[in-house]
Structure formats: C-alpha cells, structure tokens
C-alpha cells in the first residue's frame, strides 16, 4: 500500500546529491523501494497529488515539475490513484470477466492528461463495448524502463493472477537501474550488500550520454523475450508497441513476435489528419508541456484496437 512519503528523499530534483548525476547523463532519477521483493510499486509523484491536491507540503507546492498539476482542474478526471500508487482501479484477485492489463511508462500512466484521454483507457472503453472486462487495470509508471515494466507485470501476476490480455507501450531503451548512495559513488570502497538493497534507483539517461546505454539493449531484449515466452506458455494475449522510433528500429532486428511496429512518421501524419480543424486544447502536447497530447493517444488506441480485433477474429 502507498505509504506517506518524503518527496525530497524520493526524487533528486535538482541533482544535488553527492554524485554528479548530470555529468553521467542522467536526466531523471527515482528511488525504487521494492527492487528486491515481489511487491509492485506505484508512482508516488507527481500524480499522487490527485489524491492530495490541497497538500500543504512546502516542497510539493514549490516543486516546479508539478506546477502544471497544481494549476489544473482535475474535476473531470475519472480516476484517482489507487492504494498502490497506480492510476488504475484497485487491483483484485477475483476476475470473473476478461482480465485486461495495461502497462508502460509516463505515457501510459497519462502524465499531463485525464485518465479518459489516455490510450489504455480509450482502448479499454472500446473493448468493453463488446465484451465484459473485470476492470481497468493499469500498472504504468512514469520513468519506468523496459525492465521495470516487464518485472512489474511479473509482480502483478504473482499478486493478482494472470491476465487474459496485456497491452504495453514501451519507452526508449535509455533507462536503467542504478545504485545511488554516497558510499557507492567512487567505486573504491567495499559496498555493503544492504547499501545495494536500499540504494537502487530508476534513471533515465539523456540521449547524448555514453554511459553504457547500449548495454541496456540486451536486457531490454531478454526481458521482453522472457515475458513473451511466459505469455505464450500461459495463453496470455500480448500486444507490445512503442512510441520510440529508436526502440522500434532495435526491436525490428530481434525476434520478438508480439511487437506491433508503429512508425513515427506515419503516426505523425495520422495525428495531423486526426486533429485537422480540431480546436480543443492539449491535442498535441499534454498539460505538462512534456508529454504527448490526447490525439496521439486516440491514434494509438485505434491502432491497438484494430490489432486486437484482428487477432480475436483469427
């Protein structure tokens, strides 16, 4: 369950810790509390504010990265964050109808958008027009790497049973786990195993960083391969796509069967056609001015719904 958190301890904004993260090309870093156990771990920031919009926390109220959140009216949003820190219905072990799971990073979480503007929710709504589902379950988490997304799905399955269908929207491959602790910073001191357990963070690298980022490709591939094998063995219908053209290019060279390649150029063209003449706000860029707007989510959900229908017909 989501516990009261110390925002300052959780996220390094800006990077004032002893290690020079920026020089290592790290753009964002978030502490992982359950790196070495089977508990799933939601996103306590910034969207926790959905449950706590009137927070008096000085740190929160001064946090630049959550300003958009404080300035937005959330009355229209259909979803609060659940008790585990996910923007989802409460998880359950009982699934009498089709059990559908969504996962991904901030895009699938829906940073800067209302839940009903995001691709997983739209896709869920489309599917449930014709079939009954056991609920809207979304374990996406901002900043998550491919490894965090896949291991999160395994953790979800361990706790709440296997879904019938899984949809994933993958981020770029420049995200990984690192150990951040002042005692671990110089590579010279012996590192106590407890420091490893407590020091794991999830980081996103900038694209210009050369900090071993290509080495992450092999982990990205292997996590997806293991998930795909798991899903095939258990009869789970798995759909994977990515908004990252670079990741698409990488995965095209691999043998993951569950990937639906959405070319960025074609995507942009479709979004452009979709929004022509539409004057609504946030169609191209979300409220946080950093994420995709709702028009992209419209198109992704349509593409994935068609994929879903085609597979069901087969």
């Amino acid at each position, binding site marked *: 369950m989501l516990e009261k958190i110390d925002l300052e301890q959780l996220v390094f904004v800006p990077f004032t810790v002893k290690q020079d993260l920026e020089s290592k090309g790290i753009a964002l870093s978030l502490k992982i509390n359950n790196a*070495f156990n089977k508990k799933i771990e939601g996103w306590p920031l910034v969207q926790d504010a959905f449950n706590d919009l009137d927070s008096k926390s000085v740190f929160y109220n001064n946090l630049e990265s959550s300003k958009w959140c404080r300035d937005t009216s959330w009355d229209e949003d259909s979803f609060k964050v659940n008790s585990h820190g996910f923007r989802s219905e409460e998880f359950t072990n009982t699934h009498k109808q089709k059990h559908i799971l969504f996962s991904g990073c901030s895009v699938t979480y829906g940073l800067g958008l209302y839940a009903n503007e995001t691709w997983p929710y739209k896709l869920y709504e489309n599917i449930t027009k014709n079939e009954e589902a056991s609920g809207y379950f979304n374990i996406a988490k901002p900043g998550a790497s491919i490894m965090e997304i896949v291991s999160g799905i395994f953790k979800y399955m361990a706790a709440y049973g296997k879904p019938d269908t899984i949809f994933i929207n993958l981020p770029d491959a420049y995200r*990984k786990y690192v150990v951040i602790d002042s005692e*671990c910073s110089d590579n010279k001191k012996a*590192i106590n195993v407890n420091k490893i357990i407590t020091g794991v963070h999830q980081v996103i690298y900038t694209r210009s960083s050369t900090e*071993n980022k290509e*080495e992450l490709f*092999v982990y990205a591939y292997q996590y997806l*391969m293991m998930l795909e094998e798991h899903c095939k063995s258990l009869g789970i219908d798995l759909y994977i796509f990515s908004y990252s053209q670079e990741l698409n290019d*990488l995965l095209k060279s691999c043998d993951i069967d569950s990937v639906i390649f959405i070319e960025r150029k074609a995507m942009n063209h479709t979004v452009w056609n979709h929004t022509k003449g539409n004057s609504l706000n946030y169609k191209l860029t979300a409220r946080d001015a950093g994420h995709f707007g709702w028009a992209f989510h419209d198109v992704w959900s349509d593409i994935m719904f068609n994929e879903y229908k085609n597979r069901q017909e087969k």
Partner: protein
Amino acid sequence: MNRNEVMHDGNRPSDQSGFITNINVANAFSKTLDGWPMPQDALNELDSTEEDYRKQENTKWLRESVWDEDPFHINKDLFRSDEFSKNHDGKHILFSGCSVTYGVGLYTTEIWPYKIYEMIKEKEKVSGYFNLGKPGTSVMDIVSNVFKYIHLYSKPDVIFLDLPDLNRHYSLRDDRKDLVKGSIEEVEQKTFDGFFHGTYRGTPHIRNQETRIYVYQYLFMLEQYCKDLGIELYVFSYVDGTNEFLKKTDLDCMKYLNNNQIVEEIYDYAEKNKENIDEFFLTARDNQHHGWGYHDVWSKIMFEEYQSGGGRYARKDRS
C-alpha cells in the same frame, strides 16, 4: 570458429576494472541457444593441430588429460549434454549453471548434474540428460538460456540451477574505436555483434553491484514462470556472496548451502579416506575448479531437496 575473436581477452572494456574473461555472445538478440565453444570444444577435437589451440595455456590441462573415460562429447549446440529434443518420453529434467555445472576440469560422470540425473534415473523414467551449463556465464545468461531452451524444446518438469558469483554481466566491447563510425544501420549492426559476456573480479565496482537487481529479477521471473507452469525449480549456489545477497530477497526457490561446513566436511572426508580419492577430489584437472568431492556433496544435498520437493512441491509418487 576463430578462437581469438571469440575470446576477447587482450583488450578489456576500458571502463571495467578487475576483468577476468570475456566471451562474445553470438545470440544476444535471438531465441537461439549459444553454447560454449572453448576450450572444452576440444573434447570433440582432442587431436586438433590448430596452433592457437595447441599453445593455449588455459587448455593445457585439457590436452594433457585422458578423456576416454568421459561418456559425453559436446552436443551440436555446444553444450555438454545429450542432444536437445522436443520430444520427451519420461521426466524432462534440465540442469544449468556456469563452468561448475558444465564441469570444466572434470569428467561428466564426476559432476553434480550428472550425479543427480543418475540418482533420479534409478527411481524414475527420465527423457535424457540435458545440461545448459556454460563456463563464465552470469545468472542473467543462465536464466535467459533456460527461457530460450523452453522456447525451442518445450518446458521441463524439473529445473536445477547452480548459480555463480554476481560479478558477471553483459558488456559492449567498447575498445573498438570503429564502433561508432558508419551509418546508423552499420553502427547498430556493430553494436549487435559487439556484445560480450564478462566475468569480473570481486573488487568493488558500481556496475558489478548494479547487476544485482537483474540477478534478482531474472530469478524472480523464472520462479514465477515455473510456478505458473507447474515446473519444479531447485536453485543453489556454490558462492557465499550469492547466497548472502539472495537471502535478503524473497525468492522461494533457493536452497542455501552452508559452504563453510561443506568445505570442512570434504577436507575431513579426504583426510580419513585417502585411499578412496584421487588427486581431483578437491581440485579439478584445470587446477581451478571444484573437485569431484564438492560435486558429490552438492548432488546429495540437491537430490534430498528434490526428494522432499523442497517443501514446496507435492508429488504423487513421493512417499
């Protein structure tokens, strides 16, 4: 195969400390199995006249050993195993691990997986001896190969793993200055071809430490897969550091060995039974790996674990 190209032992990755070995990972991005081409490939090629092989210091022990007693050559996928098959008449048992499980320096009959296999075979019908053990390999390589094996040859009924130390991980060969030259496609291809699997010394290095989360997650995902598919999974490690680390996690599949006690027992046995042991009881023929005495003890402990279902599995024929 070009041995020098496969073993990247002259130019270690520039930002790695304590590098010991590095071997090219040929199938890093495909669901095909990548066996161990050296030096035990010589078991299939003991009379090789290739100059590189004849002079190689780390295979000297191999050239000087008598292998007539060994029942196993390397299979066509380069594993020290029966040929892999999709059809299994009898219990399908899979073993995996690093050089210890591969049996570097020992005859197949002297190693723990073969001993367990023989013990199980006395009581149950088994479909063959299948061993994915590969020298130098990491926990991540061991686990991902198990998934690849399942993809290719169906799920086993039982899996036994012996885990190595945690200072092993994939790395990109970054001493190649040509790696970032050329078109995007060329760079990508060179990246794909440039993956090596390294073993590093236990000296502190942040990247070695960071692999621990992958170690946990790979094992956790395999454990979950086995639970969901009804596969019995038995895991142990001959390394104290690995045991110490994994004890802090919530994995259910581990059998934690008391390695200090095992060493005491083995030396005590050796002292009292000098006439029953040979020079490879404590140390294998390569002068590096555990001798067959250790494999005896491990196999007995893990067979007992198997018989009791690890306290986790109920089996009809289990008394």
